[in-house]
């Protein structure tokens, strides 16, 4: 029996990125991906989707990723859901220097390939 697919919510204002991540991740058969391009609708989407992990862009118009993460933390339904940042604001060197975490939260520096994304997701989904 196949493992149940992990539910991943991808929040990024760039629709091409969310679409490519959804395509690639779902093709692995391991993930069910919901995408949200508006940071303002992200909390509602998360509450309705019940994700196992949320991938968050950092710099978005209107509301940035760290604020959204705080919102998720404040929500009883989402406070235990792991968050991975996917950002263009950090470099790979910085990711390396800080051992993949900034402010205690894991993150990926754009551009990142599928292999690294899956590795990161699996690490943070706790098996």
């Amino acid at each position, binding site marked *: 029996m196949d493992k149940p697919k992990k539910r991943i919510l991808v929040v990024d204002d760039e629709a091409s*990125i969310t679409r490519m991540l959804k395509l690639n991740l779902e093709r692995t058969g391991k993930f069910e991906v919901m995408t949200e391009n508006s940071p303002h609708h992200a909390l509602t989407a998360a509450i309705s989707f019940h994700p196992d992990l949320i991938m968050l862009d950092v710099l978005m118009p209107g509301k940035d990723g760290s604020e959204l993460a705080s919102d998720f933390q404040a929500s009883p339904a989402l406070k235990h859901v792991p968050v991975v940042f996917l950002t263009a604001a950090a470099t790979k060197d910085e990711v390396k220097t800080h051992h993949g975490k900034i402010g205690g939260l894991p993150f990926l520096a754009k551009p990142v390939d599928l292999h690294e994304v899956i590795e990161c997701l699996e690490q943070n989904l706790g098996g």
Partner: protein
Amino acid sequence: MRPDGGSMKTEISMIERQQAELARDESELRYRRLLAATTDYIYTVKVDAGCASATIHGPGCQAVTGYSSAEFTADPYLWYRVIHEDDRAAVVAQAELILKGETPQPLEHRINHKQGRVRWIRNTTIPHHDPAGRLVAYDGLISDITVRKQVELLLAAQYAVALELSERGSWAETMPKVLAQLCRKLLWHHAVYWRCEAGRLVREYGVWRAPLREADFEPPLVGMSQSMNEGLAGRAAKTDEAVWRADISTEPALTRNYPPAHAGLHCGCAFLIRINHAIAGVVEIYSRELQEIDERMLATLGTLGVNLGQFLEQKNSDAKLETERHLLRTLVDNLPVCIFVKDTESRFVLNNPAHMHLLGAATPQEVLGKTEQDFFPPEQAARSCAEEEGLFRTGQPVHDCEEPVRDRAGREYWFLTTKVPLRNAAGQVSGLVGIGRDITQRKMEAQALKLANTRLARRGKILKTMVRQLKASHKELERTQLQLIQAAKLESVGTLAAGVAHEVKNPLQTMLMGVDYLTDRLTQPDQELGGVLADMREAVKRANTIIRELLTLSANTEFQWVMADVNGLLERALHLAKSTLITSRITARLELAPDLPLLPIDPPKLEQVFLNVFINSIQAMPHGGTLTVRTRLLAMSETTRQQMLFGNCRGDEKLVVVEVADTGEGLTEEALLRVFDPFFTTKPIGVGTGLGLSVARKIIELHGGAIEIKNAPDGTGAIVTVVLKT
């Protein structure tokens, strides 16, 4: 009875008597002739009971008085009226003395001649007494002394004027007195002085003698002027000689413009006052009587005119001298220089206020008769004295002698002194005149100027040295300036890159994900499609590398400082480049100094720097060669070049120098200037990012170090030098 001899005696007696009578007749005749010819005459007054009862005037009375004996006999009071009214009292007094029995002194007085003129007579009386001693008559001898009296009056006037002139008063003081003396001594009544001025006569002074009163005439006449042809004065000026009239009232035209002439004045005379033959003025004198003026009087008045002219000239000259003296004194007293006069014994005779101030004296009396020894230090006084002795001996002046002077209060000055001999009328040196100018200020300024010039000269030398040094450093600065320009460009690129990076990474993310997706979708092995996707993945990674390096250029790069060994770091970097070295057939040579201290550095970043440097060097040797990596420890003072790199270093600091030398072709001049510019590259397109050395320099600079690249002096390639502070 008379004896015979008696008749003879009688005859003789008769003859004698006849002879006596003859002689008496002749004598009487002579006497009468004498009486008729003389200006003297005798009158006889018979006295009866002490009173004059009859008077008989001798025939000579007509010559003296103009009246005949018969006229005197017919008019018993004529004799009284003939006497000048001013003298009548004196004549009456004389007669009373005689009637009292006394013999008075002869009396000189004036009479009015029948023709109106005044004449002077001398009246000598001789009393006759009867045997009882009673006065029965007296004779009077009248002598006409007019001529003598006029001479006497003239002499008296001349003498009085001479006395006034000798008083040496001013012209204004003297001239009215002279006019008054003329009136008083000549017994005339009005005198006036006209000053000759610009072709006209200006009435300057007038005096009046009783019975005329000054107050009646003088006030309206003040400042009166008339032409050179008006009045007696004008006539005299016009004709250039003295003129006179016995009675001006007979010539109304002559006195028309001069009111006093109508105040009962008759005789008038004007004589000239000359200075060197030129007419300076005219004196007019008037009498209320008809007067005779003879040549003698005119000559005397002419002499007076000359004397007055000389006096006036003297006064003019005195006034001129006084003006000059006053001018000279004003100059001497007010010139801002010390002026003094000394006698031949070097004693002060005159000192101006400036010099007295220098001497510390308040009044001339404190200085007069003293010498410099009384005021100045002995050696200074002796020097001055010796100088003056020379002047007196040779008669030669001493010009512009600069000398230090110390005054009584001990203040020091510098004076520029000139001393010239003072000569008397005979040309002998009688003293000296000294002029001293205080040049202390000028002297101080000159000294200050000299000092300033010396300083200037010294500074000039320093300046020359500095200019030389500046020129030397100028070239270096030009080079540094170019580097700074490049740094500024780099700064702006870094700022831009930070903004651009974020925007570029999102599309890169999409592309990378797209490549991943397409690769996964490639179910059939397709070499061509696989190649394209691999190139695309590589392109995305290269783009990301460029972005990363650009971001490194931004100032916000964080460093992790640790004390680390540069030699070890170099070895690790070289190891990373090992495969490239082998591929490029390049031999690496390490010449590492064993005594390098640990440095505070960020090892991964410095590794990145040296890896970049190595890669660049390797790429400069496409046909193989040798890569030499050399390290050494350098004291700051040992080399100027490194000092220029670290201008703010202390002299005792040490530097670690890393040199990476290749054996390539070296760089062009342009490349040497631009090699640290972002995106500048000499490599083929696609081979390098053009950011490697820019990033390297940024990192080195953030370590407080410097990096430069030069061609090897022997033309055997390029050398990259990195200098790091210990």
